[in-house]
């Protein structure tokens, strides 16, 4: 297994592709965090679909398949798409989700129409354009990686430069406005970065799956932390890991398509994070609920025993289990727990009494709840 992996890594193509997938994972993961905070998760889906006609038009105009030209076309179309979505939502009755769905399907359909139109022309030099549809990571070349690297670096650099501003407009746009920040300009810039992060991924994972590369790393990272920069680092890391994982497993197993495997990897990371992230994770939440439920039952039985005992001369007066059962549901298991904790003791088969420390604790609880105890 390790052998196979090291052979893979020495392979030039695999190294190129893995590098591309890592770059993509980092940029998309980091930008995805802002998208998620701004409730724009599905905008990524719309942008990646809207980019398709841009690719086709760029090819129709220039006749060139150079990655820079195609990416530029894709970016312009994606940016125009977001512009239309915002406009439709603001100026008409159309809701945001309808605008998104309509834009992505209509633009994609238009792109498809252009692609088929191009393909059926006689001077066909168009082979490879449709790799944008589903992504062909295996076909990534040195020049594609260079473009990805260049754009990725610019995006990350701008993000770092405007870090504070972006953070502010994402969390509290009103405050940013009051502080005199050019909110709309910053908004456009962030959208432009977002679009760039998406278009450089199209060739690797394709139009359909690109949205997952934006949303999933951020969603997974969100579960582990409340701090934006940690979240962003984690998201970039998760994105990169699944990128490399996808490339390696599709190299090891024949027929396995890279893009979908990358998405499956990142989805698995999301599921794991949702379940096991400390604090927010579902497993932790369930444990916390169980614990606090247990705490509640322990306290309830203690208070019951203490109240009952106050009717008698001694605090360790034994009470029958049946009475306790009647007072606070099924007390049997809780009584055994109390015994292990040293708060109660078994007097005989049927009867239980409080210990010294049990009395102490019960008195404390009662005083906390009702002031001076009985």
């Amino acid at each position, binding site marked *: 297994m390790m052998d196979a992996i090291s052979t893979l890594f020495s392979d030039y193509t695999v190294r190129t592709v893995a590098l591309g997938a890592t770059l993509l994972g980092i940029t998309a993961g980091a930008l995805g965090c802002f998208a998620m905070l701004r409730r724009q998760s599905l905008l990524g889906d719309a942008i990646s679909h809207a980019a398709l006609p841009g690719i086709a038009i760029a090819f129709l105009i220039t006749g060139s398949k150079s990655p820079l030209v195609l990416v530029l076309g894709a970016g312009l179309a994606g940016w125009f798409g977001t512009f239309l979505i915002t406009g439709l939502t603001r100026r008409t009755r159309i809701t945001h989700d309808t605008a998104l769905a309509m834009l992505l399907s209509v*633009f994609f359909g*238009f792109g498809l129409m252009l692609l088929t139109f191009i393909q059926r022309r006689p001077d066909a030099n168009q082979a490879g354009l449709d790799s944008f549809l589903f992504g062909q990571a295996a076909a990534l070349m040195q020049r594609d990686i260079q473009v990805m690297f260049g754009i990725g670096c610019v995006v990350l650099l701008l993000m770092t430069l405007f870090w504070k501003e972006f953070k502010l407009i994402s969390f509290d746009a009103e405050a940013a406005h009051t502080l005199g920040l050019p909110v709309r300009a910053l908004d456009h810039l962030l959208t432009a970065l977002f679009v760039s992060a998406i278009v450089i991924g199209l060739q690797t994972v394709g139009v359909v799956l690109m949205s997952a590369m934006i*949303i999933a790393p951020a969603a997974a990272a969100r579960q582990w932390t409340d701090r934006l920069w940690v979240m962003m680092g984690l998201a970039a890391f998760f994105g990169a890991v699944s990128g490399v994982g996808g490339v390696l497993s599709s190299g090891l197993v024949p027929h396995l398509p890279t893009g979908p*495997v990358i998405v499956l990897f990142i989805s698995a990371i999301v599921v794991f994070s949702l379940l096991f992230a400390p604090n927010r994770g579902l497993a932790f939440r369930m444990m916390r609920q169980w614990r606090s439920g247990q705490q509640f039952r322990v306290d309830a039985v203690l208070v019951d025993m203490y109240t009952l005992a106050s009717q008698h001369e001694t605090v360790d007066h034994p009470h029958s289990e049946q009475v306790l059962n009647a007072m606070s549901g099924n007390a049997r298991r809780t009584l055994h727990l109390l015994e292990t904790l040293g708060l109660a003791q078994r007097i005989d088969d049927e009867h239980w009494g409080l210990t010294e420390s049990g009395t102490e604790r019960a008195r404390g609880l009662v005083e906390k709840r009702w002031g001076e105890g009985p």
Partner: protein
Amino acid sequence: MSASLEIQLIAVLVAVACALPGVFLILRGMAMMSDAISHAILPGIVIAFLITGNLSSGWLILGAGLSGVLTVALVEVLRTTGLLKEDAAIGIVFPALFSFGVVLIAVFADDVHLDTDAVLLGELAFAPFDRHVILGREVPRAAVVMAIILVINAAFITLFYKELKMSTFDAALASSFGFAPSVLHYGLMALVSTTAVGAFDAVGSILVVALMVAPPAAAYLLTRRLSSMLVWSALIGCLVAVGGYWMARLLDASIAGSMATMAGILFVIVLAFAPSRSSGSRRGRA
């Protein structure tokens, strides 16, 4: 009937069958669900195909319907954990299911005619070649399938019109009348799923989204009555189908792509000429 007429007939059937549930999707703010479902039905189709070994079996529709409902349920589960917002949940569930479907095809069904291109893009031009004999006449299979789905959709909406209307506009009131909004919700989602799968080999999943969203969105600009919105959507759907077909003929391009483009063009026309009584009234210009 000539092939050209048959293609247009199928396109019209698909467009109307999609427009009807689409009206409720956009009124309920669930337009992106059409995108999610139309992608997420892929693993259902593939698994049903792997079990039956037959591409034209009814089990495929059932499998797709089930995975459509599964998508909705998964999104719901993720949302109720409170760990993710609904849009993030949608954006995670459907690419995962779609990828799973693609991987299944690549690993188990590489040599069959069931490729991702066909699912996403469809090829309406080939629909007339796949024929079926019904009542002694040869008819295209896609036409039969879509006609059945159209009838089911229309029947569901007619039967539960009152319930759908109330649960769409006031879910709380509907449940206080005992209408069980969640049953209607899943019923509607099942319709969307079966419509998507019925349409998928004719027009592909992206066009399903265009046909479910664009005509109802245009109709939404034209009227405020639910019943006339349904009628307008169906009419606009027909125009999209026929207009898209002729545009494809003219340009020698993909019919599905042209229909989606036509849907966009018609929406823009409606947007330009619709009575603008409410445009911008709620939010003002930003």
